[in-house]
């Protein structure tokens, strides 16, 4: 069905902003795996204009800039899983994006699209959160970096004005000695391909103890979730059976899990929480311990 009128390919961020701003009923689109399908299946109201930002050269970089690793929002999942730089510095993102779709979807689906869709259980989003990522938002007035965790307003909702803003890049700190990350998720074999629960962890180990930890998971509330209390508890602990049990209990109290029809019960998600926590923390701690910056 004819659910949009124009499909325009932007070649630069400025052009995209111009195209977005000059038509009232317009939206950005990247890989099209979410919005385009919603439009074509009548779940999204008619749009006069779609502005495709997936081929903006300036949004397709994966680079190291000093102490930052920068990732353009137009980077595809395929680019992510093939990037040696990310393999080293953002293992959890590589793991998260490697589980999405098949090669056909990974070739077009972008990390920016995944995050901008604002699903509480977006695999790319949750893995980026564990790296304490920042996001670059560009408007005609200029650009600014903001903590990724702060852009989400609710399921599918962001705090910035989608009709005037482009989410153009992500950045997070380059990996230092003693740091490691991991991602894991549990899927339901029946029904939609959204994680029942996913989780990403990042740790910095010092002398066998956790110096700092970051844990993100979803769906654990209306927005992608960071387990700050649990992270704080873990500081200074060794990662062992007893710290795991305490952390699991703490995180269980911190998250808000619910039953979603045809997908999972709240109870099941509570069962999965410690299983995922152990899995991602085990791997993150293991990776941290093995990593030294030359």
């Amino acid at each position, binding site marked *: 069905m004819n659910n949009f009128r124009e499909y325009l390919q932007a070649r630069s961020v400025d052009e995209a902003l111009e195209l977005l701003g000059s038509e009232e009923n317009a939206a950005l689109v990247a890989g099209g795996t979410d919005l385009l399908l919603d439009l074509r299946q009548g779940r999204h109201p008619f749009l006069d204009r779609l502005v495709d930002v997936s081929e903006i050269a300036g949004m397709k970089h994966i680079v190291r800039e000093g102490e930052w690793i920068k990732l353009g929002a137009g980077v595809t999942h395929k680019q992510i899983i093939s990037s040696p730089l990310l393999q080293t510095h953002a293992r959890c993102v590589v793991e998260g994006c490697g589980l999405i779709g098949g*090669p056909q979807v990974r070739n077009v689906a972008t990390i920016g699209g995944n995050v901008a869709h604002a699903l509480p259980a977006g695999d790319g989003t949750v893995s980026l959160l564990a790296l304490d990522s920042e996001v670059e938002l560009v408007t005609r007035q200029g650009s600014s970096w903001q903590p990724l965790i702060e852009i989400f307003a609710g399921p599918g909702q962001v705090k910035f004005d989608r009709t005037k803003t482009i989410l153009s890049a992500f950045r997070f700190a380059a990996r230092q000695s003693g740091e490691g990350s991991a991602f894991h998720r549990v899927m339901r*074999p029946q029904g939609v391909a959204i994680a029942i629960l996913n989780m990403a962890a990042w740790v910095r180990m010092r002398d066998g103890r956790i110096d700092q930890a970051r844990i993100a998971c979803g769906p654990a509330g209306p927005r992608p979730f960071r387990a700050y209390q649990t992270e704080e508890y873990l500081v200074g602990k060794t990662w062992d059976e007893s710290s795991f049990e305490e952390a699991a209990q703490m995180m269980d109290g911190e998250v808000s899990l619910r039953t979603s029809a045809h997908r999972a019960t709240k109870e099941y998600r509570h069962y999965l929480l410690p299983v995922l926590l152990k899995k991602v923390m085990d791997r993150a701690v293991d990776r941290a311990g093995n990593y030294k910056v030359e």
Partner: protein
Amino acid sequence: MTNLQFEVNGKHYSLEVEANEMLSDVLRERLGLTGTKISCGEAECGVCTVLIDGAPILSCNYPAVKAEGKAVITIEGLAEDGEMHPLQEAFIKHGAVQCGFCTPGQIMTAAALLQEKPDPTDEDIEYALNDTLCRCGTYPMITNAIHAAADKINHGKPIDYPSFDFGGGLEQVGQVVPRPEAGEKVTGEAIYTDDISFPGMLYGATLRAGYPHGVVKKLDVSKAKELPGVKAVLTADDIPGRINHGEIFQDWPALVGVGEKFRYVGDAIAVVAADTQDIARQALELIDFVFDPLPIVNNPVEANQEDAPRVHESGNLLKHIKVNKGDIQQGFEEADVIVEDTFFTPTYEHVFMEPECSIARPLEDGKMEVIVGSQIPYSDREQVAEALDLPLDKVRVRSPLVGGGFGGKEDIAGQIHAALLARATGKPVKILYDRHESLLVHPKRHATQIRVKLGLKKDGKLTAAQTELYGDTGAYASLGDKVMGRATTHSTGPYIVPNVKVDCYAMYTNNPPAGAFRGFGALQAAFAIESIMDQVAEKLGIDPIELRRINALRTGAITNTGQHLRESVGLLECIDKTSEALLEHTNGEDPFISRPVPGEPNKRRAWGFAVTFKNTGLGEGAPDNASAEIELLEDGRVETRISSAEIGQGLVTVLQMITAQELNLPLEQVHIYLSDTDLTPDGGPTTGSRQTYISGNATKFAAINLRNSMLSTLAEKYNLPPDEIVFDQGVVRVNGTELSFADVGALMREEGRVPRLTYDYSSPKTTPLGEPGDKHFAYSFAAQAMEVEVDLETGEVRVVRALGATDVGKAINPLGLQGQVEGGLIMGIGHALTEEFIVEEGQIVTDYLSRYRMPSIHHVPEEIQVMIVEDPTEDGPYGGKGVGEISTMPVLPAIANAVNNACGVRFKSLPIDQDWLLTQLKKNASAA
């Protein structure tokens, strides 16, 4: 409109395209490259995969304008200099092609993989093909084919056919041969209905009720008619003939008129024909349709209650089916132990990869031609003729290739609507369902509730079996009474039971209709009986395999329906073979004990076991006939013609082999022409695993008669006794002279004989339930073992290994047989682990493919061992009987039994729900 400049298969194009045109639209409709198929249209199935600048993408959800400046390769562009890509050759030789509809997508995805990883591992293949779906379940063969292609590319190793330890024995029948139509399927030349178009063709769309039960109060189509581009809007008033259709009971209105009742969400209210599909769909929104809702009947048990709302005026009971044998009361009195339980199976969806498509075209002589991928062309002809009030000979139904069916293309879909619109407009009209509409409309597998009560002696001998079945046939009968009939007779298993009582209620509800689906009721029954047999084994302390062996049907036994089995009962051999192979896998250990997984403390593994049987053919008194026409063509080829459907199962290959066998011809000299009601006689429905037997026999006898006719011409001409005339590899030797088939044909024509004849074959007689005699003329048997791994922390279940034996009578087409067994097994894994068609209050929740998961290559076990038992049946062709359905049936209970063995949780309803499984494990742990 935007100008698009791009390259396709090395050729530059400049086109004006619309913003909302997808790349697949441009390829298929503008460039005529119909090798790229559309199966889901929602970026879920991978079938539409093409390469863009070398990378695979889904062309169904890729705006064409994005291809600007890029190079696209489609399946048509893969061959180089007229030589097939090694993948194409390997797919043919390894049997990785069945219905062929997904084949272009599989090959393109595999081609991209080989670019990136020239020598991929099994894991690489699984990762790359994980989202490219094949409902025929050719994944194991695809994996083999990719390896073979890689070996050819990297090491120059020629691609060979696989070999099997079954089949053989004859010159043609039993040999490993390619499908005759495989070449076109791997190159994209294969034509399915939607690949056909005609000048001036219009596009149809259908207004659906959208609510499960109600009365049409108002229907005003005037605004829709005014929309520019709309050529016709039709309602029930515009049907000149019979309004209702139906395979057996004509209870299903082609269109529901004002004052009439609709009974499920997919009921058709009006149909539109317009210049484009978009206009036709826009027109639907302009139809003023108002209805009075009625209370909804949700399930078959509720339907049978006295105060239930009535779906049909005659009530909600389609049929009460009974089986009685011996004295059930006495049987239970004799029992030492009685076990009773209730099982549930959900609605399942076929997901044939090719969605329904019909094209109707008025011909010059007042005839209506309907082009449709159908499982029953002659039934379509009859139903279209009745609706249009035309004599039968004024309707011609012909079928191009069919992209899968599994029972889901037996009923009318768009055939009548397209014909009505073509009649009204005088133009060809195409009605193509998208996946969403397909999921909403066509009949599904019956959801069932099956209560089983068994009585046994301490030594494990069954004394009594009582079952009560409820089947949800949905809004219309379709084949519901037959399906539930098969569920009834198979509900006590392939066992000798002296005392039997079965009551089955096939009930109407306001759910989507349920009809034929591979396994045809017997699948649901097998889940129940084979689950409870394991429960019984545990209770009696008898090995589950031994319990089956004790009770197994064997030659000389009397079935629960009173049939004396005189021959071809290979069940014990299937059990023995599977049992031996199983013990080899476990080094003699009990396979049913839960075992830890080394290095994975949270996982347990165990095997599960099940046996099944399945009738071949219609049976129970239904006349089961097929007619085949055979002709020796002037060029010396022989053509066999029959209206029997090739839906991926390999019938063309089988008929080609049989024709070649009887005439001692090379396969290339035999052509099979199927499914054209003007040119091919009726082979009957493609259902009930019947075509190899019925159409196979018709073809065999037709070929024998042609041979005899050729012999008699030659015997007269050369004045020789016929037995001195030798048919040898495509030539005939007479008195030292070698005659080609063309020569013999010319001789026959010279003497005024047309070398063309028809053979009308009728199966051995069967009798209805309750009457003495054979209920079915043949049964296939199977034993299946499945090994599962359960994650005790997450409840996740996966199948690790599978091995089983199937008695098929005779392996006529070994490559096709292997594909049917593997594919059936994978469908069984899907039914057990991934599939669930959800309907709530008559509304369909799983209305997109993204919500209904069929198994992917990821679900294929690490090892599949296919064993074939060939216990021939006297009247089957070369001893052969059916196999299409049985391969799926034992898989469901074998998996459920394995899960129980691995972790002590018994699933009495499907699919296996990891959420529920983990909850049970937690309960069990806290109770312990």
